[in-house]
């Protein structure tokens, strides 16, 4: 199967996890999939999630302080799930 691009991969991940995923869980899976490491790529995943949330493709279901320090002390961790609109956009763009 052709490897998906990052936003496509994130959307597919969330589509498969109906109960939602924490941002650090998504970051870990993305970094593993694309063989990336370091803060830069963790930041890229976070920026990607922000884009998807702003566009209403994702919904926030929970948040908490980032005690694991995945994204830095004082930052927030968010648990996302795919929205109905996100699923619709996946169907329209051949991601589903």
């Amino acid at each position, binding site marked *: 199967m*052709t490897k998906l691009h990052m*936003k*496509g991969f994130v959307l597919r991940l969330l589509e498969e996890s109906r109960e939602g995923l924490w941002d650090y869980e998504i970051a870990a899976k993305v970094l593993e999939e694309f063989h990336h490491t370091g803060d830069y790529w963790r930041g890229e995943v976070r920026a990607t999630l*922000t884009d998807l949330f*702003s566009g209403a493709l994702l919904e926030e279901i929970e948040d908490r302080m980032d005690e694991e320090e995945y994204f830095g002390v004082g*930052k927030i961790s968010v648990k996302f799930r795919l929205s109905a609109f996100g699923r619709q956009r996946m169907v*329209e*763009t*051949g*991601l589903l």
Partner: protein
Amino acid sequence: MQTLESARARYRIRSVRWGFYWALWCAVLWGAWYVPGTAVWYESPFVELGSASQGEFLLAAAVITALGSLAILFFLFVWIGVLEKWGEYARTFRQIRISKWYYLGAVFGGPCALFGSYLAIGYVGPIFAAIAALMYPVVGATLARFWYYEKMSARAVVGIIVILVGGASIYAPGLMGEFSNPDSGAWLGYLGGIMAAVGWGVEGAIAGRALDVSDPDVGITLRFTGEVFYWVFLILPAIMIFSDADVLSLILAALNFSVMIWIVLAGISFAFCYVAWYKSFPLIGVGRGQAIAALYGVFAVIFLSIFTLSLPEWHFLIGLSLTVLGGFVMFTEKTEMLEVIRSSDLNVGAKT
């Protein structure tokens, strides 16, 4: 110790602020582009062609736009190289149902908007071209609102209107002079002005759709890959085949040091202006992103004043105040209104 509440508020405001910063950065670079974009017309061989027949002038505009798009693509390739996104470029390129939107956007942004702008400059004047293009957020915001239900509060509409009135007032006094002194081919210039406003507006709306599901840095690079393909493999060869114009010798004549300097400067400013434009859309929406980017009217005057060492007219201050006020009206909108830019309830069932 930071509370969850304050961390949450900071997290929400950050993405929105970044959207505005990107759009403002786009406006600065777009304004800067007017210096090399205008100066290139004063270099040989274009300076001789500028006053020539309509056919030759159209060809010059096409060659400048084509060379410009090549320079832009070069800098975008460097950019995604620095960001280590070449792999992402290849992966997104293969997603035809996503990348096709960027190629469609390239038709509206390149051969329609940019080329139309040059026509407007040539046949009516740069002031008319700048005002006509300033209207593009109206097209973009309207399309985004009705096509994919982008949220558009009354406050955002007021902000857009104030920015547009401010932009228009900067150029309005000069516009009368251009209208009273039309060229024989003036209708081509008016058509070009409409092409610029419609082209950039439609491109933004299309890009907003594709950016839902792909990366902005990669998206803009795909969009210019499409435009370069259109110019180099379709439009310029078609002109060579179907007209008597000597396209090759004009291109060869343009490959001199002075022209290349301006083309490279135009390329670097427009490449990163476009990067910022595309990065702002997912964060604050196409309507707001385009309206803030329309502040380029102010920056164009500032950069041209610095370059020509001549102060702008006094009425520039009125336009400047209005555009800054319009930007402020939008920038201070409540974060809750902006954190999700779509009315998601309405989106399901909407047609693409």
